[in-house]
């Protein structure tokens, strides 16, 4: 297993290097004159020349890449043009909020998705299966931004059960322990604030979870149907094992490989969906920061966020591969 882990870790290095090259090309080469974009349409040629020199854009491309590469490897993402803070600082403030949202959505999607998928497969071709599959089809086809708006309309406006803006009621003061509002409220023993943070999390988390939930349900159902028709499960039933035990203990364990894969893939969907969800619910996370950075042409901030998101995604995929190898020893030796 250790050899496999090392091999897989080494494999992630060229991918991460490729990510850095892609971001460099994307933001340094394609736009043409970056300094012109940053300085704005009304900047004088002298101002643009000065900015070009300050940003090091008058150096050869290879030198620019080397400076950029060394800085990134050392953890220096530059200074935000919009906020004039270190990019890492801005990202550090926004990231825990996105993390809280994605974890909540992942729990909803993973737990409900696997449960619904197993139920649909166990009760295949019944009304329950049909009902679940209708929800799956609608969940996969509904744009996340419409789901969010509809939830605001239904549970925020018509039947006002949950707040639909920001992460906590304005004026609530929380100590900065982890940066995750709900966790910080709990850790500081402020239960009223914890309840408030939880209520603020409900609608965005459901919105973000809808698509991955539908997808996980569909994949779990497919994997379970495949496993449930295997001979060894017929044998298990023939020897008198209860159906509940056959489905939840034997079949689910053997269907876990494709389910783990799809759970990992959906983390990417969650990171993408967070951008839209945070925009709809005015949540000051990474996604909203990215949109504001693009609108302001804050290239250092855009670059920092994209590299961070890609690194997280690569690490999640690495983790999924390691879990996969742990579950199925054949992968380690192939």
């Amino acid at each position, binding site marked *: 297993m250790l050899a496999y882990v090392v091999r897989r870790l080494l494999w992630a290095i060229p991918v991460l290097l490729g*990510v850095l090259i892609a971001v460099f090309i994307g933001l340094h080469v394609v736009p043409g004159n970056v300094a012109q974009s940053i300085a704005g349409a009304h900047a004088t040629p002298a101002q643009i020349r000065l900015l070009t020199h300050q940003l090091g854009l008058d150096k050869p491309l290879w030198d620019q890449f080397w400076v950029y590469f060394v800085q990134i490897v050392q953890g220096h993402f530059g200074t935000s043009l919009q906020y004039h803070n270190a990019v890492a600082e801005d990202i550090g403030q926004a990231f825990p909020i996105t993390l809280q949202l994605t974890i909540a959505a992942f729990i909803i999607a993973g737990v409900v998705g696997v449960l619904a998928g197993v139920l649909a497969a166990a009760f295949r071709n019944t009304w329950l299966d049909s009902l679940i599959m209708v929800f799956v089809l609608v969940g996969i086809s509904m*744009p*996340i*931004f419409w789901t969010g*708006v509809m939830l605001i309309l239904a549970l925020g406006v018509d039947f006002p059960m949950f707040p639909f803006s920001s992460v906590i009621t304005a004026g609530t003061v929380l100590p900065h322990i982890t940066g995750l509002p709900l966790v910080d409220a709990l850790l500081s023993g402020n239960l009223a604030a914890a309840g408030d943070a939880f209520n603020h999390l409900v609608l965005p988390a459901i919105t973000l979870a809808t698509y991955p939930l539908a997808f996980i349900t569909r994949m779990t159902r*497919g994997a379970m149907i495949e496993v449930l028709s295997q001979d060894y499960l017929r044998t298990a039933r023939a020897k008198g094992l209860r159906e509940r035990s056959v489905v939840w203990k034997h079949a689910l364990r053997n269907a876990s490989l494709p389910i783990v894969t799809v759970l990992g893939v959906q983390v990417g969907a969650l990171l*993408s969906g967070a951008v*839209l969800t945070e925009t709809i619910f005015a949540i000051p996370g990474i996604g909203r920061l990215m*949109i504001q950075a693009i609108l302001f042409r804050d290239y250092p901030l*855009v670059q920092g966020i994209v590299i961070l998101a890609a690194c997280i995604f690569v690490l999640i995929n690495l983790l999924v591969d390691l879990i996969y190898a742990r579950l199925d020893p054949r992968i380690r030796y192939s």
Partner: protein
Amino acid sequence: MALPIAELQGEESKVTSPTSEGQRAWRHFRRNGGAVIALVALGIVVLAAIFAPWLAHQSPYAQNLSQALQAPSGAHLLGTDEYGRDELARVLFGARTALGTGLIVVAISLTIGTLWGMLSAFYGGIWDMVLMRVADVFMAFPFLLLALMIVAALGPGLVQAEIAIAITYMPVYARLVRSVGLGLKSLEFVQAAKSVGARDATIIRRHFLPNLLPTLLVQATLNIGTAIIDVAGLSFLGMGVQPPTADWGAMLSDGQNFILTSPWLVLAPGIAILIVVLAANLVGDGLRDALDPRQRHQA
């Protein structure tokens, strides 16, 4: 994004004529009631998009501030927006943007992705290694963040959004084509064609492409729906279609500002997107079932 990796068709399918294979698939497709209804619904949306100027009684761009934010009525079946523009006209013209977007994104990503995967599978070796590592890098980004980075570089706009989303889809097609292509490469009829000195282009055109067609058709149909959602998502964020063009994503984004007083502004474009994407998904699933018998037992 779902990636239905269609497996190789059996040897049997290589000896049956394309017509009989197509007829068999069509017979299976017709038996799938949901897929047929979805195909009809898609057809209606296409007709609505084509005949939008005749179906809409008003221009989608004609502003009338005295009629702003009117509730649905006989004069305006879906109400009016904040500029007094007829919502029905904008939904109908928005269908043109949505369908056009879906087709353009799929056409770009399918063409380049197929070429990418074909080169990788057919030539193998260093080509395969390099091309697949490039695909790995593309797929290392959460797709919307990659698309946003591209839009950040190119600037907001419909064409830029289409290019950005198409770029995020390309490696999916490349991987798909490579996986099917690798299997095809080792089959006897391809080996035989090589041994008699057939040119690479001929083998690709006569043996690879016809056998890839069913897989690509399914993936492309499913991607039309996701492309419509994804470009609408960029427009929702203000990075895609720019005002005053009628677009469902941008309409939803604008309508959100009036959700407390004029909820119809978010209902109509949302339902329109849902219908088209649902229909594309159902047709895609129906095609997959019809073209790949091995998937049928899981449906």
